[in-house]
C-alpha cells in the first residue's frame, strides 16, 4: 500500500505558564493514498494539534519536533516557510475545525477564491477561475451566482462549511485534511455534508484524512481508523476491525459510549474517569488509570506497538509480559 503521508515521531508542545504541555507525544502514523483515514479520540486528546504539526500551523507558543513528516517524498518538517506555503492548499488542503469562522468577514466568497488561486498559480483569467469555482459550488449544492457575491455573514453555518469544502478543491489537492467537518452543525446538514464528502471521494479518488470525535461519521466514511488518547496513538486498524474486533480496551469503551440509534439507549456506557492532564500525564500506559484490564506493568512502562490480527495496538494485553 502506498502512503501519501508518513508522520514519524511527531511531538507537539505548548509553552504555557505552568510549564510545557505535550499535546502530541511521539506519534507515528501513515496515511494510505486514495483512502479515507480517520483519527478519532475525545476532545482534548491532541487530534487537532497533530494536524497543526503536519503543516506547521501552530500558534506562536507551540513547538514541533519530529523525525520527519513525509508527504510523498517531501519532508515537510525540513521545508522553508516559503516552500511550505506553496504546498499548503495546492497539494495538501486543511479544513480546520469551526470552518464557519474560516472566512475573512470583510471579503466576498469570490475574493477568497481568487486570492487563494493567485497565491499559487498564475496565468488563468478571472473568468476561468470563477468558472471552476462555480462548478465546485454546484457540486456542494450551493447556488454559485449568489454565493460568490456574498460576504460570509450572509451565509449560514452549513453553507460556509460547504463553501470551504468547495474552496479546498479549487487547486485539486492530493490530500484533503478535515478537522471535525460536521461539528457545530445540525444533524440534517451534517448528513448532507458527509454524503457530499463521500461523493467527492468517490468521484475524484481524493485521499482524505478526517479528524473527529464523532464515531458514527467514522463508521460511515472511513476506510482506516487511528485511535488517539492523551497525545498518543493507541490503535490503528481498518474500520471493520475497529468497530467489531477492536483490540485496545479504550477503543472498545469508546465504541460502547456511542449513542446507538438502533439499540437500547441504556446500553450506552460512558467511559469511567476523565482524560488525564497533559501537564502531568500518567506513567507507563497513559490509559492505565481508567483501564478495566490494568496489569502490574501498565503503570511502569509505556507499551510498544504489537501486531494483533489486523490491528496495530499499543497495549500490554498483547505483549509478552515476561
Amino acid at each position, binding site marked *: 500500500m502506498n502512503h501519501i503521508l508518513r508522520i514519524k515521531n511527531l511531538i507537539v508542545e505548548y509553552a*504555557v*505558564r505552568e510549564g510545557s504541555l505535550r499535546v502530541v507525544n511521539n506519534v507515528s502514523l501513515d496515511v494510505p493514498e486514495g483512502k479515507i483515514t480517520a483519527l478519532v479520540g475525545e476532545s482534548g486528546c491532541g487530534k487537532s494539534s497533530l494536524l497543526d504539526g503536519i503543516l506547521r500551523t501552530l*500558534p*506562536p*507558543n507551540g513547538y514541533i519536533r519530529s523525525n520527519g513528516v513525509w508527504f510523498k517524498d517531501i519532508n515537510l518538517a525540513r521545508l522553508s516557510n516559503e516552500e511550505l506555503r506553496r504546498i499548503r492548499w495546492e497539494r495538501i488542503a486543511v479544513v480546520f475545525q469551526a470552518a464557519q469562522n474560516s472566512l475573512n468577514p470583510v471579503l466576498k466568497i469570490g475574493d477568497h477564491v481568487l486570492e487563494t488561486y493567485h497565491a499559487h498559480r498564475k496565468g488563468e483569467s478571472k473568468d476561468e477561475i470563477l468558472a471552476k469555482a462555480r462548478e465546485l459550488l454546484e457540486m456542494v449544492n450551493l447556488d454559485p451566482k449568489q454565493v460568490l457575491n456574498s460576504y460570509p455573514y450572509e451565509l449560514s453555518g452549513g453553507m460556509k462549511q460547504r463553501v470551504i469544502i468547495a474552496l479546498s478543491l479549487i487547486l485539486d489537492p492530493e490530500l484533503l485534511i478535515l478537522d471535525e467537518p460536521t461539528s457545530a452543525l445540525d444533524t440534517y446538514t451534517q448528513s448532507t455534508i458527509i454524503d457530499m464528502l463521500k461523493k467527492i471521494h468517490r468521484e475524484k479518488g481524493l485521499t482524505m484524512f478526517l479528524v473527529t470525535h464523532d464515531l458514527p461519521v467514522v463508521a460511515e466514511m472511513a476506510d482506516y481508523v487511528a485511535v488517539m488518547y492523551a497525545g498518543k496513538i493507541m490503535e490503528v486498524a481498518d474500520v471493520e476491525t475497529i468497530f467489531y474486533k477492536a483490540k485496545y480496551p479504550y477503543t472498545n469503551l469508546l465504541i460502547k459510549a456511542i449513542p446507538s440509534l438502533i439499540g437500547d439507549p441504556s446500553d450506552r456506557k460512558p467511559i469511567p474517569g476523565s482524560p488525564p492532564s497533559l501537564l502531568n500525564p500518567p506513567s507507563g500506559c497513559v490509559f492505565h488509570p481508567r483501564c478495566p484490564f490494568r496489569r502490574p506493568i501498565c503503570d511502569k512502562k509505556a507499551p510498544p506497538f504489537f501486531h494483533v490480527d489486523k490491528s496495530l495496538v499499543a497495549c500490554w494485553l498483547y505483549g509478552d509480559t515476561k
Partner: protein
Amino acid sequence: MQGELGHEGVLVNLYYSFFRPIIKYRRAAIGFVILSGFVLMATVGPEVVPLNLKTDFSQRYKPPSFQHPLGTDYGGRDIFQQIVHGSRDVLTIAALAAMYAITIAVTIGILSGLLGGIVDAILTGLTDIFLTIPSFPVMMAIAAVFEVRDPFSFAAILAIWMWAGLARSIRAEVLSLKQKEFIEAARILGLGTSHIVFREILPNIMPYIVINFITMIRSAITASVGIMFLGIVPFKITHWGVMLYMAMFQYGAVYVPEGIYYALAPLFCIVLLEYGAISLAHGLDEIFNPRLKTYE
C-alpha cells in the same frame, strides 16, 4: 473580582485587598510609590518647607545649588519651595474634581441602569451629549467666564466635563449585574433598592471606581494645569500651571538658557505625577481584572 473578605478588621482587609497585591505587581507598586511621594509632598511638604516669595532680582535664574535645590525663578525666588507649595493645589484640585466626577458618574450610571425606561433614555442621551462636546475648550471657557479663583469651584467645573465616560460604563455594568442571580435573589427577597444599590451593586463596581478615580485625577491634572498654563485662571503663583504660564508667556524663561530650570521643574513633576497615576491605574486594572495570558 476579589473574593469574600473576612472580618478581621479594616487594617487587615486593607492589607490583603490593597497592599499585598500592589507589592506583588511591580507596575502598580511603582505607581503607588510615585503617587505616595507626591501626596506626602502635598500634605507634609508645605508644613516643612518654608515659602519665601520675596523677589530678589540679583538672585535671578540661579542654577541648582545647596541653597536652591532646583535653582531660582525670574524673580530670584526658590523654585523648589514653589514646587512643594504648588503640589498641594495641584493635587487638591485634581482629587476634588475626581471625587465630584465619580459621584456624578455613579449616580447617573446607577440610576440609568437600574431604572431603565424614559429616565434611562434621557440620561443616556445626556451622557452622549457630554461625551461629544470637547471637554477642554468648554472647561476653559467656563473657568474664564466664572473667573474662578478657589479650588472647589474650579474642581466642580472640571468634574462636570469628566463624568460621562464612566457613567456610561457603570450603566453597562449595572445592566449586566441586573441579570445576575444575586441581584435577582435580592429583589425576590424584597430587600429594597437601597440594599441592592449599596450592598450588591456598589461593592461590585468598586474596583472599577477606584481605578477610574486614579485615571480621573490624572485627567484633572492635565486639564487644570493646561487651563492655568494658558493663563486663564490666575491662581497662586506657586501652582505648577501658573509657573509654566509665567515661564512660557510672561517672563520668557523659555528663551534664555538660564531659565531652563524654572520651565523644566514643573514639567518634570507633572510628567512624573501623571506617569505614577497611569502606572497605578494600569497596575490595579491588572490586579482586579486578570486576563489569561496564553502567549507569554
